[in-house]
């Protein structure tokens, strides 16, 4: 999957979980500050992303995923390692 494909798929998840417009889910956006995704919604996003992309995102890594770009990069690295 390309970076853009991962971003778009992640945007769908964020939309489903937190009701954020998928077009707003861009790489430079912060989950908390820009998209208003709180820590519980973030847990849901992470679990859905694990399922969709077939990766594992441990709880202690979640706090490092501050922006959409951080999450996309993590998913890219994790799928490359898998």
């Amino acid at each position, binding site marked *: 999957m390309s970076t853009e494909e991962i971003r778009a798929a992640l945007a769908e998840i964020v939309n489903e979980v937190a009701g954020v417009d998928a077009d707003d889910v861009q790489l430079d956006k912060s989950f908390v500050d820009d998209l208003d995704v*709180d820590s*519980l919604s973030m*847990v849901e996003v992470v*679990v859905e992303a694990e399922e969709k992309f077939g990766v594992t995102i441990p709880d202690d890594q979640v706090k490092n995923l501050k922006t959409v770009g951080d999450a996309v990069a993590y998913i890219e690295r994790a799928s490359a390692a898998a």
Partner: protein
Amino acid sequence: MTGSDRTTGRPLHTEQGAAYAGILGIGAYRPARLVPNAEIVEAIDSSDEWIQQRSGIKTRRFADDSETVIAMSVAASRGALEQAGVDPRQVDCVIVATVSHLLQTPSAATAVAHEIGTDQAAAFDISAACAGFCHGIALASDLVRGGSARYVLVIGVERLSDITSTTDRGTAFIFADGAGAAVVGPSTVPAIGPVVWGSDGEKFDLIRTREDWRDVLASEKPVMPHLVMQGNEVFRWASYSMAKVAQQALDRAGVTVDDLDCFVPHQANNRITDAMARAMRLPAHVRIARDIIDAGNTSAASIPLALERMIRDGEAKSGDVALLVAFGAGLSYAAQVVTVP
């Protein structure tokens, strides 16, 4: 390794119980004092809006000195016995699920059994935290079917306000007090499905009292050891692992989500309930317990409290198919499908 059955020895007489068991009555006791978020927020530097957004909770109830674990259990039990039409002297066994009966021994159950007027019923407490009530229902069902008891009172009761720190941002707004009870007895039709239960002791520390009594006494300023919780990890486990357990309970009882009338999960957090319902793909017709909004999280008491309220409000009718899913410290969990009394 495979276990092997015993094959030798003098055959003993055994009892045969009822063909099936069911919940015959539900009762509840809610403490008188209603505590709005406004009373909680200052000590945790929070707001009504934040608490509602994080948990759905608007108000909860805190017990006063007279509303003891035993007094609340007795009140809830009387309601359950009345609905069941069972005389206290017919009760053979009383099971109290609680983590907040703060006397090490004897159990709360023996006092409850005495005060409601049983004829020296067997009585004991179980410690399975928020999953305690569903553990109790599973035990009661097997006691009735195994012939050890004909009518069993299962009580979930907590005074979590006694063991919650008013300044802990992760728990102060969540935990609350109350009691719920169920009478389990013989049924001519299967009315309590197989329990799906288990534990994950690797997550022992996710929800726990901060320290053990000996550590408390060794400290310079002993204070009540209060509950601590790693909220996000619990949220993840409860929302997703428990949706799978719930599905197994449906499968074991031979029903699908389409057959379900009511979903009564432990009232841990409205967001967990939402995530579970989404993960389980619950159809829109299934009525979902939301007692947490004004009762808070009452641990072992939350499922009977929520079910009693759904019955009272007409959201659950006699004969409805209800899914109970309980989960909490341990971590421990138990789920079963039941017929609403």
